[in-house]
């Protein structure tokens, strides 16, 4: 054999994953644009390749072959109208529920619509032709590569997910003629577990990460607790996780320290719930997602299994082992150690959170706005019976107040507390002109700027003061005008409180919390400098004093880090 696999990485990943998913039947139609793919599979004896000139015929052959063999069948075609001839056969496959993977090769999609010969637009599909359709661009970075692996896995899994059917991949090619790669890359495989073939629990350290989640039932909490006992696992939480079981580890405070208390690195992360609230530092070698929707969600590009089932079913299946949990103690000790060393913080959202969070009454609901507020309040534990929410679905600042009010009018008997920054508050301002129920307590942290962008560790800090006008939105909405919100509150019948320093805050805090006060708004004026200072102080309580840690902090270490990252 005079040639090997192509050197086009997207194609290599695709071929590698076809093999991992046991897909070997390929019907190839001749052409130039799919040479990188066809030239590579034809030298690999794993694949059974058949040639068909007319793509319409090829797609119908794939129907017959898939049905009779019980296996998925791959189609591959070139540019121009080739793929349009797959339409009748794919439509038949759609209605007969046959798993056919149509790989249509294409030139760079930037060429679409520019009078480039043979280039057509394959970005839209008929609703009853394929179950899903993805674009597979050329790979230029490690991250491209990781997401390509995820995307290809997802497309292949969709062939047989639920009701089987066809799937489309538009595969970009650079027309590379280098067929020089002798071995396919080893690619991460994602598998979907529905009710059988459960994998073994990997050895090593296991963490359950809970993204935004509704209230857990007692049974769910019990099963998670049993699981943690059995596998020495911990539940990594932020406030919006709402897991209140024994193994809750509110991780922001400890895991944002430079020092590693043994609570950051895991062999397996089990992800339940949706988008997380706080940005918590931890890494897992692999990720298992458990959700009845069975969808591939791969935030860290390390997903290996999706369990399409209720969480309780998952934990019940695995919780059969003996009890021996030590990691909980480790997390608790680390939290105590760091918490006891928190220095005096300047007047800031962080300080307020520390002085307030435990006072939010039991059985109430706490909303945290995006983003700095959500971050800092996650450093401190709430009382056990408080449910917490944030708009972490789309992570926007645009509707925090509205979501809060929506929640408050739904449960009028439950006290609702909202902590919100000025950018988010004014964004959604006209929400206060709706009905204001009496169970709301709003705390507006007004520093006249998007503090998020002014934090010492934010990438905008590189711009310093130059970030203010366009990046950090400084000076809008009256720029800490002391009357703006006060007058508005008067107009809409909301009690107004105000604090400009620690003493004033403590003086009015209890009134703000008091169940009888609502509707009430407490405006707190802070500055972005103090906010950033507070964050830096709290993140630097426990430094890594090992030789490596000290080296990393030194000027030489920083330069080395930069070079390595490049």
């Amino acid at each position, binding site marked *: 054999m005079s040639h090997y696999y192509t050197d086009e990485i997207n194609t290599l990943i695709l071929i590698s994953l076809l093999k991992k998913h046991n897909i070997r039947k390929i019907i190839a139609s001749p052409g130039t644009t799919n040479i990188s793919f066809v030239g590579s599979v034809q030298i690999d004896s794993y694949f059974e390749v058949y040639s068909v000139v007319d793509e319409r015929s090829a797609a119908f052959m794939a129907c*017959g072959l898939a049905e009779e063999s019980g296996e998925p069948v791959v189609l591959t075609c070139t540019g121009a109208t080739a793929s*349009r001839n797959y339409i009748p056969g794919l439509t038949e496959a759609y209605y007969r529920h046959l798993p056919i993977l149509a790989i249509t090769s294409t030139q760079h999609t930037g060429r679409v619509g520019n009078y480039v010969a043979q280039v057509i637009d394959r970005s839209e599909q008929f609703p009853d032709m394929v179950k899903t359709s993805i674009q597979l661009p050329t790979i230029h970075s490690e991250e491209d590569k990781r997401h390509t692996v995820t995307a290809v896995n997802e497309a292949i899994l969709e062939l047989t997910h639920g009701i089987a059917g066809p799937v489309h991949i538009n595969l970009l090619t650079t027309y590379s003629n280098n067929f020089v790669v002798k071995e396919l890359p080893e690619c991460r495989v994602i598998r979907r577990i529905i009710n059988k073939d459960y994998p073994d629990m990997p050895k090593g350290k296991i963490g359950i990460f809970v993204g935004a989640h509704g209230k857990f039932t007692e049974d769910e909490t019990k099963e998670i607790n049993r699981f943690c006992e059995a596998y020495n696992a911990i539940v990594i939480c932020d406030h919006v996780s709402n897991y209140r079981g024994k193994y809750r580890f509110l991780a922001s405070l400890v895991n944002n320290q430079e020092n590693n208390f043994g609570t950051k690195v895991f062999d397996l992360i089990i992800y339940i719930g949706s988008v997380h609230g706080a940005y918590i530092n931890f890494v897992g070698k692999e990720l298992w997602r458990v959700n009845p929707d069975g969808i591939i969600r791969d935030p860290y590009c390390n997903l290996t299994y999706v369990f399409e089932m209720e969480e309780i079913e998952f934990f019940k299946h695995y919780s059969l082992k003996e009890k021996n949990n030590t990691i909980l103690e480790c997390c608790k000790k680390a939290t105590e150690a760091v918490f006891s060393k928190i220095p005096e913080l300047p007047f800031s959202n962080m300080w307020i959170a520390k002085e307030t969070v435990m006072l939010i009454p039991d059985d109430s609901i706490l909303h945290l706005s995006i983003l700095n507020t959500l971050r800092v309040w996650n450093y401190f534990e709430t009382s056990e019976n408080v449910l917490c929410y944030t708009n972490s679905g789309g992570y926007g600042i645009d509707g925090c107040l509205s979501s809060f009010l929506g929640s408050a009018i739904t449960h009028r008997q439950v006290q609702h507390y909202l902590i919100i920054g000025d950018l988010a508050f004014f964004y959604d301002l006209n929400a206060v002109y709706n009905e204001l129920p009496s169970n709301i307590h709003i705390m507006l942290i007004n520093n006249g700027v998007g503090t998020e962008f002014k934090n010492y560790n934010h990438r905008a800090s590189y711009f310093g003061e130059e970030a203010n006008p366009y990046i950090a939105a400084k000076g809008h909405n009256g720029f800490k005008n002391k009357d703006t919100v006060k007058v508005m509150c008067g107009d809409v019948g909301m009690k107004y409180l105000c604090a400009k320093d620690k003493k004033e805050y403590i003086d009015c805090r209890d009134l703000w919390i008091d169940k009888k006060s609502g509707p009430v708004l407490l405006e707190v004026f802070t500055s972005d400098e103090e906010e950033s200072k507070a964050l830096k102080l709290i993140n630097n309580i426990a430094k890594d004093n090992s030789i490596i840690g000290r080296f990393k902090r030194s000027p030489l270490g920083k330069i080395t880090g930069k070079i390595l990252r490049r």
Partner: protein
Amino acid sequence: MNVIKYLLDLNIKYIVFDQKLKKSLIIQNAYNLGIECISVLDARSATYYATGIAAQSKEKVVVFISAANSRSAFSGMTEAFYRKLPVILITLGKAFNYSTELKDVVKKHYVFTLNEKMDNVYIDDGPIHIELIEPEKTDSYEEKYTSFLVKLENIVQKKQYLYISRNINVKNLNVPGKIVYGGIENCDAGAISNVLGASLAKSRTRYIGVLSEEEYLHDMNALGNININDLLLYFIISKKDNNIICDYSKSMGFEVFRKSLNELDEQEMLSAIRNGKRTVFFVYEEG
């Protein structure tokens, strides 16, 4: 008829139509009005015809096809789109979901019933798609060919794969082996290929396809495929005798049986199944 009024308003001079729609009132009316009506077997081919006519004549050209065959139309429509040719694709009936159109096949998409006025339908710089939603009459082979199917039931055995295309339109045949009812109702494409594809799965099964003359003609180029093998047997059912089918099959290396319904003999069918050769068994109505 509103469609005819629309065609007149647009001063349409050419209609390319799916030959299945020859008897439709729209085509009959169009003939009478002196519009040139061109019958084309395959919808894929029809749309390309239209691009050719439009490019030469600079006229708007209507392609009139049954919805069931419409999925074959989009290679030609892509051609029309990129060349800004004024091709009006009219699909009759409701077979598929066109709530989303591909980005580069038509500029506009309209849906009408036959009784609706076709106002505000514009065609300026490229093709459009009009769905005329009306139930289609189906031509069933079922009753006429019962005698053939009964014989088939008698002779097909275990370890034989039987594919009955949707156009043959029979269900619940009773055979001991595997039976597949493939295809989409009234869609003529892909029957030969379907059976050919299946035959690639196992090496010792006799793969028997039963399909209509129209389906053969739509997919006949599959007989020239290099994967065609001796496991394959196609029964082609036709309203009349057809030299093309027999001659082309022979030229592609098939053993050909050619029988009218009256001459049909079970033993002969059995020998076709057992001959171990790629075979076309052509059955036609006499006279």
